[in-house]
């Protein structure tokens, strides 16, 4: 008999013990404490809702929820502004101050992470309501995934009741979404505890993720860029993982999102707003790989067809900036597959604006 067989036998002998009292007590205590603890954590995280995903609204979310932060910043603007930047995290780094030098218009950047077409519409309506008048110009960065049919349209608002209220025509789905696995995680539990603490002692000032004009900063990445430790290769890999997941459930363009986009364009036309729209670029290597591995190329073609059709019908121009070479950019100036350095994204928009000015539009 080998050593491990001896061990197996010992355990077998132990387990062969009769169902004694100690074992029964042991087998009862464990589930009571373990499952009780799990339920407690789940209840705490859903009710406190520190990330603002369940919309319980009992306490103010404590994490960087782009939509909530930008709503707050929009309301803090000292006076009306005339330029509005819309788009996803890829447009967060567009600096309204730099655009003002080209256009002369003071602006606000309302781009938010994972923005979809319903964001464009909701943000424009909210902007008009808060600003008191429509903008004279909108700079819009459009991603293909903004038209994805991957999730319920209301889910994308992740906690912003105010934005959701701007879309009365949209099917809101369930307001109270079912809990997700993060409600069992340490990150959300810690934030729930912080949320309760802040509710009792007062909230800290807004984080410095966004400037007052909505310009976003990826603090860690900007620091890495500054001290030369930025790893583009790692960033490209992260983007691949992220976008594989984004394109996997993107089986067709979402009819609801197309409808929101159309309403947005109608609103732009109605207020005679100048729309500077561009298809957001990707890093060439990332683009090559994501198109090889996913349905990205097919979805991109579908989105382009739709956009060209909509823009042509109004006599507008969609600026193709799919790759750095389209706008004279530099693929080295990327954090990852889709996010550009702040200077690069501002350069992109400035070059589009100058080109338009050169053409008299």
């Amino acid at each position, binding site marked *: 008999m080998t050593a491990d067989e001896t061990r*197996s036998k010992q355990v077998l002998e132990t387990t062969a013990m009769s*169902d004694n009292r100690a*074992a029964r007590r*042991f087998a009862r205590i464990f589930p009571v*404490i373990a499952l009780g603890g799990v339920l407690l*954590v789940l209840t705490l995280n859903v009710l406190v809702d520190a990330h603002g995903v369940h919309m319980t609204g009992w306490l103010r979310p404590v994490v960087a929820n782009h939509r909530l932060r930008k709503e707050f910043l929009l309301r803090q603007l000292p006076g009306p502004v005339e330029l509005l930047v819309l788009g996803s995290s890829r447009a967060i780094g567009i600096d309204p101050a730099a655009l003002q030098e080209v256009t002369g218009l003071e602006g606000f950047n309302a781009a938010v992470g994972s923005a979809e077409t319903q964001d464009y519409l909701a943000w424009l309506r909210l902007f008009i309501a808060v600003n008191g008048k429509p903008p004279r110009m909108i700079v819009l960065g459009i991603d293909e995934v903004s038209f994805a049919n991957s999730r319920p349209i209301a889910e994308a608002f992740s906690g912003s009741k105010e934005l959701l209220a701007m879309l009365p025509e949209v099917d809101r789905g369930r307001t109270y979404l079912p809990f997700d696995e993060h409600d*069992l995680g340490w990150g959300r539990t810690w934030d729930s505890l912080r949320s309760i603490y802040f509710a009792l002692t007062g909230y800290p000032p807004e984080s410095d993720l966004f400037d007052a004009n909505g310009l976003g900063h990826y603090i860690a990445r900007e620091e890495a860029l500054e001290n030369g430790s930025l790893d583009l290769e790692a960033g490209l890999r992260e983007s691949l993982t992220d976008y594989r997941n984004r394109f996997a459930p993107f089986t067709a363009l979402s009819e609801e999102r197309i409808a929101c986009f159309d309403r947005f364009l109608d609103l732009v036309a109605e207020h005679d707003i100048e729309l500077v729209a561009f298809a957001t670029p990707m890093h060439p290597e990332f683009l090559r790989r994501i198109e090889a591995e996913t349905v990205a190329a097919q979805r991109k073609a579908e989105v382009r067809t739709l956009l060209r059709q909509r823009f042509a019908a109004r006599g507008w121009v969609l600026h193709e900036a799919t790759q750095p070479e389209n706008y004279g950019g530099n693929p080295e100036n990327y954090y990852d597959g889709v996010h550009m350095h702040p200077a690069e994204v501002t350069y992109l928009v400035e070059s589009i604006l100058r080109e338009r000015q050169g053409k008299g539009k």
Partner: protein
Amino acid sequence: MLFNSYTFIFFFLPAMLILWWWPGLSRNQRLALLTIGSYVFYGWAEWWYCLLMLGSTIIDYVAGRRLAPDKPHRERLAWLLVSLAANLGLLAVFKYAGLMARSVNLVAGWVSGSGPELLEVPDIILPIGISFYTFQSMSYTIDRYRKRVPETESLLEFAAYVAMFPQLIADQLRAIPTRLTASRVALGLHFFIFGLSKKLLVADPIARAIDPLLKHWEWLSFGDAWLSMTGYSLQIYFDFSGYSDMAVGLGLWLGFQLPQNFDSPYQALGFSDFWRRWHITLSQWLRDYLYIPMGGNRQGLPRAAAAILVTMLLGGLWHGPSWTFAAWGLFHGLLLALEHALHRLKLWSPPAVLVRLATFIAVVLGWVLFRADSFPMAAHLWWVMVGGTGIAFVPEAQPFLLVLATLGITWCWMARNTWDGTASLRPRRAVLLALLFMACVLVMTRPSPFLYFRF
């Protein structure tokens, strides 16, 4: 599906246990449940993984029937070869095709100078668990050929034996228990929760600390290199032994007894002892199906040394399609052969504490080959670790890792392992396990596959 996922712990496992212990189920119904559940488990990421396992199972089931002792020797040999070819063929295609193509291209490049690649390197995803179930399945036909095991009763029984998600030993399927005792629940909890904690609370934090260091291996200092490789030694132990403990716990809940797979390997006194304590089931497989058939230690020192080297080389390659794994196996083979020779010659018997320390240090150096993505990385790490770039240790540079490594080593050297502490059924042990479970649940949001899943 991962043991350390919400899906497994809160949905798959409870559903499986409820159905498994459902009153009145016949043995065949339970075997079917076990097989289907195991296929769901394996096929969770990619359903076609199951087809491979099913193919291997059917071939070996048929081969096993044709390997009846009363059949002519030639026919039996032919069916054994069919089984070996099928299983090794699966491994060759899905695991080693890329390595073979890269190696051929490398050699062709050396011979002809630079030029176009001779073979296209296939981009094949390694199906989860393929190395485990092909060996499991193949061992049955080999044992049938050797007339050591009876024929399996049915395809269903054999399919359950090959597929069972926590893995098990075949003879227990003959007498499936019909009642779950509180003792089994308690002991299952002991193994499962401690295993889960080893993975999530020890191995994963260590991995998060050492991965950034090893990513920039060119810049590691002497101290950082030792710290990161000691950390990796701990990570791989806690990761894999944690997985094995969880499997034992699951087995207990299903009424089975799985063998011990780790026995405090870093307390080993020598390399033979290490391999008696590390991945015991694989060591035994290699011993029974490779080392002993090659003559073992019965035919003189040179023959035994050659058998050890070949066995360990193949054992290393079993871990992955990379020559660094083969080199790791060869490294251990050399150490084992050397130890074997020294033992026979009885030259010197150093104190046990020195033997333990030397064994541990050599094992850590061996893990360099195992962890390295390439030979240049391994060579550089070794060079740094032997002081080639200077000897400097700045403990404050990696305080978290230093504390983790110190605690981990102390645990590995001093503490009892999971199998030594099974007797306590005190309420405070139940509370401790429940709190550990809660801690694990809180950190389970990060997906973290087990290291051995990639093998």
